[in-house]
């Protein structure tokens, strides 16, 4: 074990390491119990991060996408170029730069602020929220259908295809040699999917065959949860090792050789 040098306090870099180390220990102290050090770190974290996100929103979203666009739009309007001001080219086609079309999101944004400014007019915020959630819902529907429902169904059926050389060739998949073990696996996969899917039937009473299937479904679900759990453990331990390395190596300067 070699002790090189504890991070020097005199430099901005060294000071940063000392602060980071102190805050790291503050958070770790929560493992013992809630205490003033944790409270300090927690409140600092909330303050710093909410300030940081304002910066992010302003510099990455509001300024380039709205303020700059509006400035350009008003400039064009000042020059008498109305079409350009609203983000249309000479032929009237929509340009990528929206310019004054950004007045609509601006208005929707101001509506939201009314909650805070004037309770009487706060109802206008619902227009913004309805827009926001309506758009999100519209985007979500085809995405949920294709990436969650159909893609999974396709994956399930595809397993059976790749084991059959004729099918695999015509579907453009890599054919696999079908051994008994692989077939058993493919059928287990199917049984698992179907029984776990049956667990999510809400309007049918869990009786008879469905009851058996639900039970099998739950077993499959539990094995899957266990697998995810076990799979994550090592990743979490390596995170801890990362923090300990920071404390021992970067802060205290201890290296094990």
């Amino acid at each position, binding site marked *: 074990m070699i002790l090189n040098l504890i991070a020097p306090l005199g430099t901005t870099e060294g000071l*940063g390491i000392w*602060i*980071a180390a102190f805050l790291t220990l503050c958070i*770790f102290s*929560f493992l013992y119990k809630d205490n003033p050090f944790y*409270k300090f770190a927690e409140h600092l974290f909330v*303050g*710093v*991060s*909410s*300030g*940081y996100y*304002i*910066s992010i929103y*302003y*510099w990455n979203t*509001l300024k380039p996408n709205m303020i700059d666009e509006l400035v350009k739009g008003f400039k064009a309007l000042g020059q008498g170029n109305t079409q350009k001001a609203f983000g249309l080219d000479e032929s009237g086609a*929509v340009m990528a730069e929206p310019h004054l079309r950004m007045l609509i*999101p601006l208005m929707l944004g*101001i509506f939201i*602020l009314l909650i805070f400014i004037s309770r009487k007019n706060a*109802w206008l915020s*619902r227009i*913004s*929220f*309805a*827009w*926001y*959630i309506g*758009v999100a*819902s*519209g985007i*979500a*529907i085809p995405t*949920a*259908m294709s*990436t*969650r429902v159909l893609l*999974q169904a396709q994956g399930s059926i595809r397993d059976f295809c790749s084991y059959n050389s004729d099918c695999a060739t015509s579907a453009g998949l890599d054919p696999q040699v079908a051994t008994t073990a692989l077939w058993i*696996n493919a059928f*287990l996969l199917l*049984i*698992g999917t179907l029984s*776990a*899917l049956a667990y*999510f039937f809400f309007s049918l009473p869990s009786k008879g065959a469905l009851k058996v299937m639900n039970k099998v*479904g739950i077993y*499959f*679900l*539990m*094995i899957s*949860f*266990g*697998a995810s*759990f*076990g799979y994550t453990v090592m990743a*979490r331990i390596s*995170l*801890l090792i990362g923090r300990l390395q*920071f404390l021992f190596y970067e802060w205290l300067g201890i290296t094990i050789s």
Partner: protein
Amino acid sequence: MNNRGPLLIAFVCGMLMMAESFLDYSWLNSFAEWVQKYYIIIAAFAIVLGVASLFKLHLAKLKRKEDGWRYSLVVFFGFFAMIITGFFMNDDGLVGTKHPWNAWLYNNVQLPLGATMFSLLAFFIASAAYRAFRARSLEATLLLVAACLVMLGQVPILTGGIFDNLPEIKQWILDIPNMASKRAIMIGVGLGMMSTALKIIFGIEKTYLGGSEE
């Protein structure tokens, strides 16, 4: 308060966005592109409400000298440190999160705090595993056995006999029973999402707007 207007807006926006994924019209496609790119502006405005809420909470604590009011000062200290360095300082054109002081605060305060919170999971996962270990049911046992096999399969520290097969067993659990349930969950979630989103677009579910129709 009347919700009819907002519900109509949700319907029109939702239908247009949905239609856009199937129809090939340049005006519709550029409309959708515009909406997707800029509806986030609303979120940027909303952050003002968020900060107002945060201020209200902590100013009230300071005013009433509630338990732990001193920590509210820490919140303001952190907040203004980020705002001053992020908005009012300019270092040769480096502004905002690129300003060296802002970046310094981010790297030495926010980042290590986040990483340490994240690393606490190593301890919490152990206590959760212990709890699973104490549960006495077939379901819990299946979960625990699968977790142990997958975990041990990832770290080939044990060798010889059955342990040599652990990586294979792990892979089998991940590829077969795990995959089967994940598929079923995903299909269910997809249908649930679609149903919820459709209920919103068609105005069947309107709770999210708060106020009633009357």
